[in-house]
């Protein structure tokens, strides 16, 4: 109903954008605007003809572009994989882009400490043994101040003083206890990492490292895409992929439908460490159950009958540590899990169990006429660059083989 005004301008802008973007990618420079008035018409015609040619070329080229979708529930690691692909196969992050993440990282720090402090207060009121969640008196003042900062629209730059205060509060026993119960609050996974590196993050001329950027947490909204070629820019015959990253929360999923056509492969990210956590957008629903239902829904889409599915069982590093403390049975889907041993063997056993569950789900949800579509499971830790590179190479191989099979050459 706001549509009228936005619609017109939106559509005009959109068509103008696509035309001009093609011109850009082809020509690489933008024609100067300061043209003498008399030559304007002739120039414009030439430009228009050039754009038409480019569009025709692009349309032909587009048929060789493979569309990849990164799907998954919220906070499953899609955007991290996206960033990794950018790092690996595109130009990577230059200093300007790294600097642009400073505010994001600082925001993460403020938000994390606010969540922990507010969580401690809440647990102190509701839980039975509330005394261990009561923050010490000296730190209470700091806590209140940081909580107030965290509710502001604009966060201040993270100075050494504030960082010191945050560190003090982080070390408080009550906050550590709250962090141990972090699964019932919405504590981001990067909390520990950022809290431990606070001194570095609060430097005056702080430039985030690649690792910091990968840990930074931002909910994606809308759709983001990149185009890349895994072999490198020089070889023309390499596959060209266009990768789409989306938001995972429930309201973002209604936008997914616009991307479902002509997809070569769906990379479905499932964070296996989230079996004891609740959704950001619905704290009554378990994240693993949501992932299960979402995966089921994606598999049943009619558009994906011929699409390859790559399931990334993500956040293995957190899973490793968690599975030894929190049994898998807390999640309803895994309630028939029997712990076998402890230590390293336990982790492997648990992982195999989860993998089998996903395989079962896949075969349950796949119609008999879709059985020949590719389905592969990969164990990933999106933060680990080497692992992602290796995994992606395997994905690329699989897709290339599939492509050849479909073209009848294999």
């Amino acid at each position, binding site marked *: *109903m*706001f*549509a*009228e*005004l*936005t*619609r017109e*301008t*939106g*559509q005009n*802008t*959109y068509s*103008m*954008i*696509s035309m*001009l*973007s*093609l011109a*850009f990618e082809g020509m690489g420079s933008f024609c100067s605007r300061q043209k003498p008035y008399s030559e304007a018409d002739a120039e414009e015609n030439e430009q228009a003809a050039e754009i038409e040619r480019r569009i025709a070329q692009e349309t032909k080229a587009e048929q060789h572009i493979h569309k990849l979708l990164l799907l998954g529930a919220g906070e499953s690691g899609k955007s991290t994989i996206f960033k990794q692909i950018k790092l690996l196969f595109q130009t990577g992050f230059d200093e*300007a882009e790294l600097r*642009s993440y400073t*505010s*994001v990282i600082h*925001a993460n720090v403020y938000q994390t400490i606010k969540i922990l402090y507010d969580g401690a207060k809440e647990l102190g009121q509701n839980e039975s043994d509330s005394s261990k969640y009561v923050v010490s008196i000296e730190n209470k003042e700091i806590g209140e101040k940081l909580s107030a900062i965290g*509710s502001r*629209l*604009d966060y201040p730059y993270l100075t050494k003083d504030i960082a010191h205060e945050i560190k003090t509060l982080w070390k408080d026993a009550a906050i550590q206890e709250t962090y141990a119960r972090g699964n019932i609050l*919405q504590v981001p996974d990067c909390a520990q990492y950022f809290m431990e590196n606070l001194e570095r993050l609060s430097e005056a001329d702080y430039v985030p490292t690649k690792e910091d950027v990968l840990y930074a947490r*931002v*909910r*994606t*909204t*809308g*759709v*983001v*895409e*990149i185009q890349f070629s895994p072999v490198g820019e020089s070889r023309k015959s390499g596959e060209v992929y266009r990768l*789409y990253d989306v*938001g995972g929360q*429930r*309201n973002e999923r*209604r*936008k997914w*439908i*616009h*991307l*479902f*056509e*002509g997809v070569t492969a769906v990379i479905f990210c499932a964070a296996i460490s989230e079996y004891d956590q609740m*959704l*950001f*957008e*619905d*704290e*009554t629903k378990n994240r693993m159950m949501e992932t299960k239902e979402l995966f089921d*829904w994606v598999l*049943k*889409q*009619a*558009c994906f009958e011929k699409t390859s599915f790559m399931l990334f069982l993500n956040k293995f590093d957190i899973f490793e540590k968690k599975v030894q403390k929190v049994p898998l049975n807390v999640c309803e889907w895994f309630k028939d899990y029997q712990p076998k041993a402890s230590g390293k063997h336990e982790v492997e056993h648990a992982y195999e169990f989860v993998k089998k569950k996903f395989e079962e789900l896949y075969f349950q949800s796949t119609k008999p006429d879709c059985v020949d579509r590719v389905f592969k499971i990969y164990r990933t830790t999106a933060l680990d660059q080497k692992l992602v590179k290796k995994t992606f190479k395997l994905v690329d191989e699989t897709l290339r083989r599939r492509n050849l099979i479909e073209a009848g050459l294999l």
Partner: protein
Amino acid sequence: MAVCALTGGCVTDYIAVAISGLSLFLLLARAVFPFLVQKAPSTKASGLSLVIIQIIGSINLILSLVMSVNFLKWNQRQPWQSCYIWAGSYLAYLVLLSVWAEGPLGFGLLMSCRIVQAFQLYHVFVKRRLPPVKPFVLLILILLPWIGGAAFIHINKPLNHQCHMRTQWVIPVVCIHAFYIAALIGVTRAVRHIEFRFHEFKDLLQGIIVSSIAVGFWIGAYILNEVHEDILWVQVVSRFLLLVTASVLVLVFFSMSVSQPLLSQISLRKRESTEFVTMGQALGIPGCGLLVQTASVAGVDLHQPLDKLLQDKRFRQSFMDFADSCLAGESVHFFEEVHELGKIPLDDPVRRIYMARHIIENYIVTGAEMEINISHRTRQEILGTLDLAHPDLFNHAVNEMMQLMKMNLLKDYWSSMNFVKFKEENPRQPDSSEPAGWDLSPRLSCVRCTDNPFNHEQLHKCPSGRKCDV
């Protein structure tokens, strides 16, 4: 005269039957008309089923009246003239349409809809909370006494051989009619001091007046028909009046509710006039929806924080276009609507409530068409609020959306074509620098799909035309 009064077949009777036939025909035409003319009127499935129930109820009423009261002349009383059979023959709605031959279901439905609407208005505007019960559930609850009465009468079968109710049953029947009207009057009284903007009060009054007149006529004709069974011309005239009134009322009730489907009368939104594009315009908030070209040449300082930047209309429009093009527009639209809400003064709670309710239905409710990306707590806070006109109702949600826009969309915006266009149209001072490097944004040619979802077109189809199961 004497003969036709008892056995039926008077001229007036045939005229009455003709009128009732005409009214039934018009009823059906009216029902089918919207579906023929418009491609697909936006009727929810529950609203559609109500409409169908009302059509069947009306047909049942008219036919049972014609058959049971002796309008047509038959040589002997046909078996299928029995009042009970006519009622029982409608399979799906047996209990609902059972024998209460002279109690129109349409009347009950319409009254209940109006009562539900009044109740919801009371809840929203007087108590300033979102209604706790879904309208459809409430409708069923209010309709239950009506259905209960019909079932009770069916069980006890107090009708004599001419399908006339014994006098002692007349009073409870009249009482139930009167009770419903009294309930409607009561709830309407509770909201009479609110200055509604979309004629809701007028609708309620209209409902009360029409139903009171109807019931008055009905009772009058009914009593005449029942009480003076022996005075023949009274019989004829009252029979005629009864059927004609029934036909006319059935048509009036139906057209009052079918021009906007029954359930829509319960929701506030449907009252938006078509010449208004946004709720803000409909409520008369100054400066909404207009792209004001300010005279100042001085451009916007692009280093301000985002919430200040978004106050500038041209920047907001440009940013909104960018967000719409990459399917993230709901954040900016939400911000704009809350901004408009902020323009309504605090001492005008009615308009604030309209706007707040509009925002909640479009952006906050789970499954809303432009649902925004906020946390569970923030959403529950808004939906469970005790004061819809509170100035800080959406503060947390706006905070979260600002963070989302700042950290996510804004960076991509600086390197987008929308920003380039904005810079061209709004030349700034030569010494102010650009916020970010000139580089191709990853969101550029975002989604190669045929329609922008913020154009509210069909969302649940694969662009290839095959329907995806959602």
